[in-house]
């Protein structure tokens, strides 16, 4: 199984961006690159070469699902799992997001202390 080191995080809300970075870097020991929008993420994607991608669903401009579609054109999302983060959750929505190619959905609000292990779990499942 490849190692989980670098995480690309796409989120337009600066507060969430900061707390996610902190939670993943300090608690999880990962290296996090934060992007404020989908386009930014696409530009950075190949240079950063992430092992895992976290995508906010609702963003101005390109939204999460649109960004995912673009990402999937550039890299193999079977190798680099993508998870959405969103406040809206109904089982059918989760199923819908997964049908777009996401591995799972992390629900907002999240507990900063638990986030890294949530990501780790999704990663492990993706590489089973």
């Amino acid at each position, binding site marked *: 199984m490849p190692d989980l080191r670098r995480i690309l995080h796409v989120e337009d809300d600066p*507060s969430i961006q900061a707390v996610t970075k902190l939670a993943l870097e*300090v608690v999880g020991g990962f290296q996090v690159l934060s992007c404020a929008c989908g386009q930014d993420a696409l530009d950075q994607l190949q240079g950063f070469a992430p092992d895992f991608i976290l995508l906010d669903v609702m963003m101005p401009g390109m939204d999460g699902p649109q960004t995912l579609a673009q990402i999937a054109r550039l890299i193999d999302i079977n190798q680099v799992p993508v998870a959405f983060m969103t406040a809206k959750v109904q089982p*059918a929505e*989760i199923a*819908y997001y997964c049908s777009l190619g996401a591995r799972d*959905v992390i629900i*907002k*609000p999240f*507990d900063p202390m638990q986030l890294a292990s*949530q990501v780790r779990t999704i990663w492990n499942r993706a590489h089973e």
Partner: protein
Amino acid sequence: MSNTKTPAQELQKHLQQLSDAFALRLQEDLPALRQDAEQLLNAAEPQEQLRCLQTIREQLHKLAGAAGTFGFSRLGQRARELEQEAEHWLTTLQQEQQSLQDFSQSLQQLANQVYQPEPEPSPAPASASPSKAPQRERRIYILEDQYAVGETMRLTLNNFGYQAEHFTRIAELDHALQQQRPDALILDVNLPDENVTGLAYAASLQERLDEPLPLLVTTTQDDFATHLEAVRVGAMGFFTKPVDIPQLENRLERCFAQQQGEPYRVLIIDDDRELASRFSLILRGANMLVEMQHDPAEIFTHMRNFNPEVILLDVNMPNCTGPELAQIIRMYDDWLRVPIIYLSAETDINRQMNALIKAGDDFVTKPISDNALVAAVFSRAQRARLLSNALSRDSLTGLLKHADIKEQAAVELERAQRSGKPASVAMLDIDFFKKVNDSHGHAAGDNVIRALANLLRQRLRRIDSLGRYGGEEFLVVLPDCTAEQALRVLDEIRQRFAELKFIAAGSEFSVTLSAGIASTEAAPVSASELLEKADQALYAAKHGGRNQVR
């Protein structure tokens, strides 16, 4: 001094800083929200209102997502509720100025308060897997003035796994309703000791509640007028006394299944992107999942990936007309159950009929009001789902059929063997079932089977699978469960089943069951060997005197 801190303390400090920064941000965000709320109220043009609402919804969405993470759980919760309201307004933005005013006031209240992180531990780590949702017991209130009748109902429903409470007087029920809202209310119509009838009380009760309570009525009056009155107060079931409780339970189960159903999936095929987006917005507002498709040639991919329950189809498209596409869809048996509704500006009744004769089920003419669109799609989707469930599941019990449960058993056992955890299977059979049919009739027999199916559904875990194996025989697959645990669970079910009271032609009777268990603990076995072992255990239970689990 910071270098004496542990990493955990260091982290806490950083989190605190971020939480402080968020609190600072609120001092800007909330006044901005307040301004938008005022603007919304003063907006004269619907267009302007829409724009305001859009902004407000985005702001609320951010708050809803962020506040809880920084410990402001009350704010996050409230923002989430208001976000949903904003969404509602966006889709149904019409008159109703008064309620809009209320909404604006709620927004201002939210923005006007001073917030601090609440001391209790921040939100529970949210797990996203839908299957893990905790299953709690459903609370049922019973209003029945005859003590013995009400108590029997309460005990029977408790046996089914509900948490039922029985009241003989309206005042007691009212008191309980103030303490806690139940999931459903079962109400006797005839209450000679009260100064109102049960239905009059129900009417005033439903009026008081924000959201109507699922209601079942029991009565000695079987006439049309009482039926009508019951429907008017929102009753979802009507039972003549003496009440057949398993049947009542069956109806309860159906009420709940309808309530918690997943959103309907609707596919819109229209080359007019703007119109399709508008329809999609309206239907999403009514809590449906919508996908749009502008190119008819991609129909197969969309049908397979999205698996829609209703198709909205434009009649006039370049390259391929709606009726042509409908005929293509109808070439496949798998998609026969999916209703096709045409969308068209076509008002000529003859041409409408021509389209329907080729394929398709209904016609909706553009322009159409939001409500009419939602109603047209909703009713079709509801019916399609009911039908589809009826086709893939055993019609009497709603459980998997023989072949499906056998396949499920094989899948689960394979999974168990991979994970190294034990799994058990249980074969259940109703004792002397033929005698039930012979002495009480086949309808009574069907009731017994349905009651056992419902009891199993209530008592088993979500991960367990459940199927009707034969006439009166059931198969249960219990992953991650030892033989000993399975024995305990099944024996409890056996006892509760024996306590159920059935009524047929005015006489009461009860029935018992036998069960045999086999588990993977002893040695690795194939699915068919395990089923064979369970069958032998069942045989032993039958010969050991029935009404037992082996």
